[in-house]
């Protein structure tokens, strides 16, 4: 395995990272939106969102990705590997984010909403100033956990032809007839990234536990 091979795995890592960031950036607000629909019991849509989230949480990312990559062109919607990958990641992760946001919303104390209403806050202002800052804090560890879960499933994107870490490693392994070194390099990239996220999550949890104990 040559120097340029290692470099190509690192450029794959950049793709992986960018796609994960796109999935997180799109999934967080979509998940929040779906959670709000369920929390506010918007008629008709609530049931649909509940079924959608349950189905997506249960289905493997590979199956979803293959469905989108082969199924959408069949319905007349052209889609490339990168956009299919981002769409699949977003759909998958937003379902998990929805459940995280929703559990924070369900646990949110009703009295605060009533108090906000009593002092004349509009619903949107109440959400921005009262609800969102608090649920963002309580669901932060779970959200970070879901981010590391998302990065852990990104190697799947390689099967539709996205040149990410995994595909770069597989290609080098096939070229050199020595698959072990490139896979080790790929793991050496993945493990620190995910470990960093896990450490951040543990740090937040510890900090929150300490704040709770002192309060």
């Amino acid at each position, binding site marked *: 395995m040559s120097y340029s091979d290692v470099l190509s795995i690192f450029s794959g890592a950049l793709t992986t990272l960018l796609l994960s960031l796109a999935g997180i950036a799109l999934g967080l607000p979509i998940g929040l939106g779906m959670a709000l629909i369920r929390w506010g019991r918007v008629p008709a849509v609530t049931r649909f969102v509940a079924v959608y989230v*349950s*189905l997506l*949480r*249960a*289905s*493997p*990312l*590979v*199956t*979803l990705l*293959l*469905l989108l990559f*082969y*199924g959408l062109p*069949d*319905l007349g919607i052209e889609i490339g590997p990168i956009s299919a990958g981002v769409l699949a990641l977003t759909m998958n992760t937003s379902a998990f984010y929805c459940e995280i946001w929703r559990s924070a919303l369900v646990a949110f104390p009703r009295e605060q909403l009533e108090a906000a209403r009593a002092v004349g806050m509009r619903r949107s202002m109440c959400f921005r100033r009262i609800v969102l800052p608090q649920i963002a804090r309580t669901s932060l560890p779970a959200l970070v956990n879901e981010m*590391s879960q998302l*990065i*852990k*499933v*990104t*190697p*799947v994107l390689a*099967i539709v032809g996205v040149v990410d870490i*995994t595909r770069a*490693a*597989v290609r080098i*392994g096939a070229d050199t007839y*020595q*698959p*072990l070194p490139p*896979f*080790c390099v*790929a*793991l050496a990239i*993945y*493990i*620190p990234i*995910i*470990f960093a996220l*896990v450490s951040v999550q543990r740090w937040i949890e510890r900090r929150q536990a300490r704040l709770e104990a002192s309060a």
Partner: protein
Amino acid sequence: MIHDFGIVWLHVDLLVSGLANTVILSVSAALSALLIGALVSTVLVRRAHVAGHIVRCLIDVARCTPFLLFAYLIYYGLPSLGVRFDNWGAGMVALIVYHSAYMAEILGAAWLALPRDTIEAGHAFGYSGLRLFRRIVMPPLALNAAPIIGNQIIQIVKDSAFLTIIALPELTNAASAIQSQYFVPFAAFITAMLLYWALCLVVEAGVSVLGRMADARR
């Protein structure tokens, strides 16, 4: 579109055998991982011991490893070290080793959360060994850990789908086979996703039944 589902229905035997393989893989991997995880967790809970630290590090590494990359490593990487598996062997080993780490972590945490006084009371009443474990330790442990173990089993079902890349004939692989032969991607993969959903609902129902049984015994 209805026609497409008709084509999938004609090849339902392929999907059923894929589903059966997914179930076989998941159940045997879950049972083995639980067993190995339970054994490993007995080392894990000994915090002060060196072995506990080593196991802790290994589990952290496993938890930071993407499953697909791990499966690739075992199927394509290990043969160059002289360890050779067929696709079933590699898939099985990958699922079991990977999820044993998670199970050990779950069981270790549940064990540490167990109140010490009940166990001491059990000792005082003359329980010991296997009987102590079966009557005193096991029920609250299973009750506390059941939902998380259920989640982990769902994760195993979902991870088994990744094994389609090493040509293991499980559910996603069966759907791919139907789609590549008849070009009915939408119908084939939607059917597969619905079947995965059904599997997960079964696991969730099982966990809630177990929880109610344990509750009734309290």
